């Protein structure tokens, strides 16, 4: 009986501990995360937030920290800003790098920026899910390949989870994108949420 009570007490303490450290998923990204030109409720962080709450309860939260036009260079300083906020993240979906490629910035520099951001996250015990990205074939095969490979390399070297392609099933499908052909529409964001959830759930 004593053993049973001790075991129950242990379980209770752990569940209390779980309850006081709610899951906060920081979605650190660019316009694909921000939900450019669509309602904030339709962007994938808001949809993810609903999933989290449904699975983990009302204290779980997904924060939209997307900034349109941002490059991987902004990652470290933006993460530091969120580390100081009352809702300190426990998980981070790192979705940066597309704008680096759109501007033809060196892939090596992008890789280093992503690594620096991940290192800060890891130092702060934040679990990282890196969003892998591909470039349209029109950017040239060599650049597109090195860009895609960079995400795999970072994930492998930093030992973090990777979404192989963040826009899987969305990119190159006009019906899931805005007229600019680049940014997902609300349906596109629903697909992204599925992709993200599939990769995030094991980390929760």
């Amino acid at each position: 009986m004593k053993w049973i009570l001790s075991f129950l007490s242990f379980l209770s303490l752990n569940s209390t501990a779980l309850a006081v450290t709610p899951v906060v998923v920081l979605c650190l990204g660019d316009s694909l995360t921000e939900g450019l030109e669509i309602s904030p409720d339709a962007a994938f962080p808001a949809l993810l937030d609903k999933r989290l709450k449904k699975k983990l309860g009302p204290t779980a939260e997904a924060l939209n920290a997307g900034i349109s036009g941002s490059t991987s260079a902004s990652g470290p300083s933006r993460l530091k800003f969120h580390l100081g906020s009352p809702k300190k993240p426990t998980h981070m979906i790192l979705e940066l790098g597309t704008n680096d490629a759109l501007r033809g910035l060196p892939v090596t520099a992008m890789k280093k920026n992503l690594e620096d951001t991940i290192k800060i996250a890891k130092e702060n015990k934040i679990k990282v899910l890196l969003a892998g990205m591909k470039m349209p074939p029109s950017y040239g095969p060599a650049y597109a390949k090195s860009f895609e490979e960079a995400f795999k390399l970072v994930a492998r070297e930093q030992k973090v989870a990777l979404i192989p392609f963040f826009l899987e099933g969305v990119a190159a499908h006009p019906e899931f994108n805005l007229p600019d052909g680049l940014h997902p529409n609300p349906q596109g964001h629903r697909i992204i949420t599925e992709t993200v959830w599939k990769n995030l759930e094991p980390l929760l």
Partner: protein
Amino acid sequence: MIWRRLAWREIINTPKFSLFFILNIALGLTGFITVTALKSSIDQSLSGKSREILGADIAVSAFRPITFDEITAFDALVPRGTRIAEESGWVSMVAAVTESSHGAPPARLMEIRAVDPTFPFYGEVAFTGEDGKPSTDPIFRQMEVEPLALAAPELYFQLDLKPGQSVKIGDQVFRLRGTIASDPSTSSASFSIAPRIYIGRKWAHQTGLIQLGSRITRTRQYALPAQFSEAQAPSDAEALEAKFKAFAKTRSDLRIRSHTSATDELGRILKFLGDYLGIIALVAIILSGIGGNFLILAHVRSKIRDLAILQSIGARPSSARWIIGWQMILLGFGGAICAVAIAAMLLPAIREILAPFLGTGIKVSIQKDSVIMALIMGTLGTPIAGLPVFMHLDGMSAATLFREHEDPSKIKNSRWLLAAAPSIAIIFGLASWQARSPKAGILFLVITGISILILAASGTILLRALAPVSRMIKQQTRWRSWPLLMALRHTRRSSQNLIVSFVTLGLCAALISAVPQIQAILTSELTSSEKTALPGLFLFDIQPEQEAPLRNFLESRNLSSGSFSPLIRARLDRINDKGIGETFDNIPGTRERQSEEQFKNRTYNLSVRGRLTGSEALAAGREFQTVTFDRTKQDLPEISLEKRFAERTGIRLDDVLEFNVQGVPVKGRVVNLRRVRWASFQPNFFVQFQKGVIDDAPRTYLGTVTETDFDTTQKLQRELAQSFSNISIVDVKASVARILSISEQVALAITAMAMLCLVAGMGVLTAITLQQSRARSYETAILKVLGASFREVYVRVLGEAAIVAFFAAATGLAISFGIAWVLSVFLFDGAWVFAAKAAVIPALLIVALTIFITMATSRMALRTKARNLLQAEL
């Protein structure tokens, strides 16, 4: 038809009046024809430039292939003879092809434009050949045959290549055939971080880059047949754009642009110019109308006895109207013919004057439409404008012969309004036609109507107040200049005539003085006074930790950096504690409302600034109470909004806005609306917070660098890539220079138009003043008969004219400030500038001109025998 013969005889028998009348009508219509001709040529000149930027009259583009059905539909909308071309554009890494390269060849991001051999429809891409010399080879035709490329100089610098060498785009190698020297399609709308390279469209697929998932812009360009482009530019392209858009209403992924809407800034300039020239033409017509009406009134007054005699010997009352009416038609027609002749003679000279501003190639020719309109206005508009006078002829009888003075202006207000209605309708129609907007027509009518009412009221009050003033002077001072005292007192006695003169002069003064004021407002809006501070380069994506090192980096290279503006991304969540979605829930959803809602439901780049800069002006509200937010003194941080942004979102002063800055709610109160002079090309933002509020929020900086040449820019780009790899440079020199040159050209044209209007206005005014002076001849004769000396009569007549002219010009001047303000706010969306000097000079000229003409005519009348003067009057 005896009245026709009588009308003709009347014209012959009164040559001075007929000449005056024709001259007056001719002056006004000359102004109209000349302004229309210039408007058309300036439109053409600027349309040509805007066409060069788009490369076509109208273009349809999409990030997907344009379907066969869409092509068929669009092609069916354009007139026969329209030239059509296609273009594909994308950005891609372009690699150098060099034999000696070790490892991977260098590659840089480039903007590729795959064009048809007919490219460009308008303008010319100037380039130097492989020998470095300017070339006139048909390069775009050659591209159809061979895999050739024409590249921006930056490509050679970045890939360390020379013309004649090759680059690889995807799987295809292209020989670099030359270097772009100037490309008219570089505009503010196409700021690009990647240098441009042209290839033939035929070779685009050979690159292997156009495949599923590729981001390619497909463009279909239309160049209208020459007769369309030149005759009615730019309205044809705009009308076609509307038709295209109507077809593509449900296809939001199709982008349709006409050359006038290709760049916002250029579109705004063209709209300003169109509205302004419309106003100038209207001012010319209204001045002519005022002059014409005045002359008819004076003429009928002088001929009323003749007409009464005709009626008393058996002529029908309608005959009097027909005689005068036919006279007006003949004289009006004569005036219109003279106007066409004068305009034809003046235009070559005006073309020469404007050549330095608008280019030597400018074609200034009389427009067929304006000639027809001038003939209609002269022939039919003149009798219509004279309708109020004809109304009076109805009440004329033999008794008129026994009255000493008969004033045809004394008719009942209700009948006068009825008679004036056709003239008002004509002015409204012309205003709407000239400004291409009924809004401008209504605005102009309302302005003119209010001005007349103000002038009539203030004229009555002022002139009636002058008689007691003369009594007061007489009683309380020793001043005994009877001619001047009589002039003062006379202003009350014959107030109705004088009020007509007062209103006429005042309205002329108001309109003429308003024109240079509007010109000052527009030129200040269009031109930059800070040319030295114009940015040459924009630096993007500067991270907070890079700000100081970058400044040092630029300083160490003696580069003058402008302001570094922080950019903080935030979403507007609530206005006055109501969620954006809730704010308009109770308002029926119109398209405008939905669009407004959609505009609000966006993220913005906020910035932080303590005070207004030189390119900003306070439109409403006050400056920030303190540069930095003081929590102890202020309940909320203060926000400044750009005026047009506030209007578009419906946000007002004192509204409390709540932004979501990366998940953190930040509230602030709108304390001012700013008017931004975008022509300064300085970085600016719709929403600006007081310092000390969002200073810790994630941000990047936007920097500017001034005065850089090509080599410096390229060197800077290379060095930046090594030290600050994320920072991108956009060279805006060419775009800024292009937009500025067009703005300045428009500003100069506007100034020239203002001068032309002033000259035309003064001409009409001369005719009016001459007629007024002639009307005073009778009094001059009476005074002479009564024994007044030359000096006494002179002072009496001149005094009265000067008093009326001075007060009318002063009132008109005051009204002109109101007109300029109303037009600047409602039509030109600009900042009102207190252009006192520009306004006062025309008003002073009006007074001086009136006095000068009165002096000249009075001297002439005084030298004439009293008997002759009385005979002329009778």
